[in-house]
Every structure is written in C-alpha cells, then in structure tokens.
C-alpha cells in the first residue's frame, strides 16, 4: 500500500524498524510488527494503563499514541526490564509481595511504578497509591502492588 510510513525507533536498546499505516496505534505496532507482546491492550482509550511503556524514559500510554509518532524515540517495554537472566529489583519485589495475579495489568504497572520511583525515589504510601492509580488492576486489590513498590523503593537499584 502506498500510504505506509516507516517507523524507526530503539526498543529496549535495540534498533527496530517497521512500516505501517499512519493510523496504527503504537501498542499494535509493538505487538504485531515488532512481536513484543508483553505490552497489553486493555481499553484502547487511555484509562486502564495496561499498555504503559517508557517513551524517552517517561511513562506513557501506547494505546493513545500513533506508532509514527514514536519514530526516532527510545522506548522501553516490560521485556527490557530483566537483564542477564536476572529480574529487575522491581520485578523481584512484585514476585516477593504478590504484586500480581493474572499478570495482565502487570507490564503497565511495572513501567508506571518504575517512572514513579525515578521521579520520586522515596514515595510515601499515599504517593505510591497516587502513582499506581494510573493503572487499573482487578485481581490484587492493589495491596500486594503497594507493598511491592514500597519494598522496591527501599531496595538497591529499585529505581534504576
């Protein structure tokens, strides 16, 4: 098709490229064109937060952004958190404190929490709640997530 645009970006430190329609949502591009299915689609109108990624280091919703808008950007998705076969301290804390059940909101929750800890490395409980209120979870009642983020804030490297 003639009206395709090319999109080049770095995802989790790797140069990636694809061609898509301008209307293609960034989350669909990540999942379908780049095979990064760790980022999930939950509402497609920017409320549930399951699709949250880091865009140039800052948490953003990938369901209300066009893939073409990310051309030239640096992205991080849930697949980029663990390094050298080791979980990120934040992931470790989620496992330790039962911060997930079905796991569907978890990628968005992790990326949101990471952004929170980078902007506020020692958040109060109220600040953690406010930060993770950007992502809806229907399994955990948020208690395990709150405990996990609090623990990660205290762990070395939790905000790296």
């Amino acid at each position, binding site marked *: 098709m003639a009206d395709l*645009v090319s999109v080049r970006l770095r995802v989790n430190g790797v140069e990636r490229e694809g061609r898509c*329609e301008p209307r293609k949502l960034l989350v669909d591009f990540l999942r379908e064109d780049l095979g990064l299915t760790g980022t999930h689609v939950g509402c*497609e109108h920017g409320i549930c937060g399951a699709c949250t990624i880091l*865009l140039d280091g800052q948490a*953003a919703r990938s369901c209300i952004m066009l893939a073409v*808008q990310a051309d030239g950007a640096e992205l991080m998705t849930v697949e980029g958190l663990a390094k050298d076969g080791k979980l990120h301290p934040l992931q470790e804390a989620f496992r330790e404190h039962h911060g997930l059940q079905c796991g569907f909101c978890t990628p968005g929750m992790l990326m949101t929490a990471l*952004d929170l800890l980078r902007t506020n490395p020692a958040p109060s409980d109220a600040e953690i709640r406010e930060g993770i*209120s950007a992502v809806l979870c229907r399994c955990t009642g948020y208690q395990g997530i709150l405990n996990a983020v609090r623990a990660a804030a205290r762990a070395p490297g939790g905000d790296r």
Partner: protein
Amino acid sequence: MKPPKFDYHAPTTVDEALALLGRYGGDAKLLAGGQSLMPLLNFRLSRPAALVDLNRIPSLAWVREADGQVRFGAMTRQRTIEFSPVVKARVPLLAEATRWVAHLPIRTRGTIGGSIAHADPSAEYPAVLTALEGEVVARGPRGERVIGAKDLFKTYLTTSLEPDEILVEVHLPATPAGAGSALEEFARRQGDFAIVAIACVVARQGERCTLARLATAGTGPVPLRLRAAEEILERDGLGAEALDAAARRAAELVSPDADIHASADYRRHLTGVLTRRALTRALGVARG
C-alpha cells in the same frame, strides 16, 4: 476500537502547520498531546481527513517569564509544568492543578495548549486560565491575536479559535507575592475529571481582601468566573462570615447540568463547599 483512516502530517514549523490547516479547509485536526483526541479517534467519534501533528515543532515547547507573566509554548507538556521550579514559584495554582490532571503517564504527553484548546469544562487548566485572567495567543493566516480567558471558552469543547488558527502560547499572570492560591476538586476517583473544582487566588492586607479570584470546573458548559462571590470578599473582607457568604453566592452563580456521576443540585452544593475550602486553604498560605 481502531482509528479510521486519515492523512498524517508532522510539520516542523508553525507556518507549515498553518499551511496544512489551510489546505484541508477545516477537515484537519491538530494533534497535540493526543490524550483526549486519540481516544475519540479510537472510538471513531472523530473522523478528520487529516491529522496535523504538532509534536515535531520544537518552537512550541518552552516556559519563560516575561512582563509579570509566565508564558508557555502550547506544546509544553503537563509533566514539564508539574516539575517546573518557575511554575511552582510564580504560578503555584497551575502547579497544584497539574497534579489533578489525570495521571502522570497522561501528563507525560498532555500539553497545556491542547488541554485549553480542547475546552473540556470539567478540566483543570481552563479553570486555572479563567481564575488567573490568563490569555492565549492564536496564530492564523491573518496573523496573531491574543484572546483573554473570558472570550475563549464558548461552550462544551468549543472555543473562539478559528478552524485555521493554532493556539501557540499560553500566558498566565504571575501570582503577586504574598497572595495565596488553592485548587479544590471533588472527583469520584483519583485522576478523573472533576465533578466540581474551584480554582482560587486571594491576596490580603490583614483582614482586608485586596484580590480575589474564583473560577469553576464542572459547573456548566464553560469554566465560570465567580465575580459576584469575589466582590463579597473585596467588599466585606476575609472574616468567616464573608467567606461563608462568598461560598453561598458561588453556589448561586452556577447552573450546572446533571449527568450519570452527579446531579445538578449536588454540583451546585459542591461549588459552595469547595469555594469555602479553597478560600480557607488559599488564605492559609497568603501573607500580608
């Protein structure tokens, strides 16, 4: 829920963007932060022929002080405003309001110009612009014009911007030294649009009120300046009775609509309650 087809343009200058708007003759939409427009596209409630994406115009993203104002390029992100020392020091009301705008990942993309031009009457920024008597700069084929807050908002999601104009700057008067400000909001959940919010600035000399500004979100088709309530304070001072009277007057001044989240009566009631709370809190930080 996938967006319909559209032409996509990402100009790098405002002039290019204006030319594109002209070319589509009103059928193009400006894409700023996209945090309201993209959901509308995904729901296919908006179907423009083209999107003119402003995100690649570097000259639209800046914050600076000038002539007693803090001025913003329209594409300045809400997140930038949230963490801006200048905003915190010179327009604390805007800093506070920003924390009420949705959630941090939304503020990463959302812009001051986009929020104001979208003109959702339940949003915080239009209320702040109204309370502070701010103004916006629009640029179009006929050049630039400055539009004051009171002339900007026409009705729900509608401003006096022409289809071929772009909102390029937002100007907010710096809060006078010693004045206090507060934004009180009631929403069903964290991060939701306001059921009612009150933006407030007060300055005092002892019990005398030298400046009072009150504006609403969520009480009707446009953000409302509560001038008659301000006058009570300017006339009667800042004693408890005057504050109560101003709050009562505030509730009388609004004629909100009902929706599934709140009745008109409840919104009117909240207008009074939140006005009283906002005044109390603003006075708590005011000096003089």
